[in-house]
């Protein structure tokens, strides 16, 4: 059976979805929440064929969206801040959507998606689409499906897409590639914490927020960050430091201003969603490799293991690397022929 036929057969098992996919895509483009939700589920399912199908049909966006990544240590108030930020943008007539990523358990694969509770009242009142995603053990705080989900939300006509990452610090760098603007949220009283994350996430952030400004030491915390930012010399973008508190809705205006002016800065430099584009292609390439090469090689390895057939220069007892090299070499030679 040829590869095409096999694919077609596999696809047939998606029955209802396959017949509805066009309907789904037009629903997404009309910003119908139920269609968007189902489309995101489809890119979440780890079937690369399905992911390819839906994203291809969705195609290139008519208007580019600006992706804002909100990151910072756990418990700092990211979810509450996003609720206020998103509804504040809606009030200004800027249509936006929210993706919140939570951690999966490495032991059971289960996950408690708790971000929604903190923001849902605000989002519901402003009619914002919000979706929780479990990171399914992906490193770097970003779920793989987030890339596809962003494309879907972009196709739905959102101008801004706000992503909340898994509460993390130093190693949370993956979002750099997906988000156009990275907002790092900190709070007063984090002195040592700020030290700890200085090297990683601090360098890649474009906007700093001191949240919980009603707390003691808030202005010292702002001053600390401003000191660090004042030493920047590698970019034209002067990184703003803004203070917010959920006790004062007005306080979010300066954050919205900062985000919009960074968008303008990116647009002027023609760098809006350039990195995201690369990440999309990288993921697509990974999918192709997985589908066409890795899975076949693994099958071959199992074959060799179970059949007892030795490879030509079998050294599997002493050195697994030689086996791997041999398998890949055979594969590449075979596909050239």
């Amino acid at each position, binding site marked *: 059976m040829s590869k095409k036929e096999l694919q077609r057969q596999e696809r047939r*098992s*998606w*029955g*209802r*979805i*396959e*017949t509805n996919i066009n309907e789904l895509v037009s629903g997404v483009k009309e910003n119908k*929440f*139920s269609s*968007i*939700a*189902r489309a*995101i*589920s489809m890119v*979440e*399912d*780890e*079937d690369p064929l399905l992911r390819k199908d839906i994203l291809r049909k969705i195609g290139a966006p008519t208007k580019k969206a600006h992706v804002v990544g909100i990151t910072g240590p756990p418990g700092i108030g990211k979810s509450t801040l996003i609720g206020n930020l998103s509804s504040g943008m809606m009030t200004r007539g800027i249509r936006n959507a929210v993706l919140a990523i939570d951690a*999966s*358990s*490495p*032991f*059971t*694969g*289960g*996950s*408690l*998606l*708790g971000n*929604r*509770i903190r923001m*849902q009242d605000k989002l*519901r009142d402003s009619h914002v*689409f*919000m*979706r*929780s995603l*479990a990171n*399914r*053990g992906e490193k770097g705080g970003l779920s793989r499906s987030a890339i596809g989900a962003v494309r879907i939300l972009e196709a739905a006509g959102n101008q801004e897409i706000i992503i909340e990452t898994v509460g993390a610090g130093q190693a949370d760098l993956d979002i750099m590639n997906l988000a156009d603007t990275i907002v790092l949220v900190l709070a007063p009283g984090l002195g040592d914490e700020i030290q700890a994350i200085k090297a990683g996430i601090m360098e890649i952030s474009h906007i700093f927020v001191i949240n919980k400004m009603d707390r003691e030491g808030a202005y010292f915390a702002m001053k600390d960050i401003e000191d660090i930012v004042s030493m920047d010399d590698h970019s034209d973008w002067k990184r703003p430091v803004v203070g917010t508190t959920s006790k004062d809705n007005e306080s979010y205006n300066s954050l919205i201003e900062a985000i919009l002016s960074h968008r303008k800065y990116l647009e002027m430099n023609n760098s809006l969603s350039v990195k995201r584009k690369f990440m999309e292609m990288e993921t697509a390439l990974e999918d192709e490799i997985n589908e066409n090469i890795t899975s076949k090689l693994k099958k071959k390895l199992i074959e060799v293991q179970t059949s007892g057939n030795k490879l030509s220069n079998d050294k599997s007892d002493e050195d697994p690397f030689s086996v791997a090299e041999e398998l890949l070499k055979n594969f590449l030679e075979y596909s050239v022929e």
Partner: protein
Amino acid sequence: MAAGKNQSSSKQRPPKILLAKPGIDGHDRGVLVLARAFRDAGMEVLYAGLLPTPEEVIDTAVNEDVDVIAMSLLNGAHLTVFKRVADLMKERGIDDIALVGGGTIPEEDKPALEALGITGNYGPGTPLSTIIEHVQKRAAEARAKKLGQD
């Protein structure tokens, strides 16, 4: 507690569950215990928060594209509120999300709930493993429906 199976390596994503106490019922200790148990059984769990309306529960379920809405009430309003959720789902033509109930539900009310498609209806003292097993079964049915494999 039922041991969870690591789903991250399998092809399908884990079952997604929305826990909700629709209507006026603020006693959520039990539902939080369930949230944890479901997570430990390898599901992706959402909690609708305190005092959502039936409409809000369904909106959340649709946007998150969950497989099961697990409702709990301790206030005796299940025949009204659970029914409202079931009716709204029917109104909106949603047939691929399963409804599961629980709380203080008298034996004689259960047939009426079952007739609405709300299954389980477990009371206090039910072993977690029984509840988990039932929810997993219903989640699998709903997922099959979503994929057109029913």
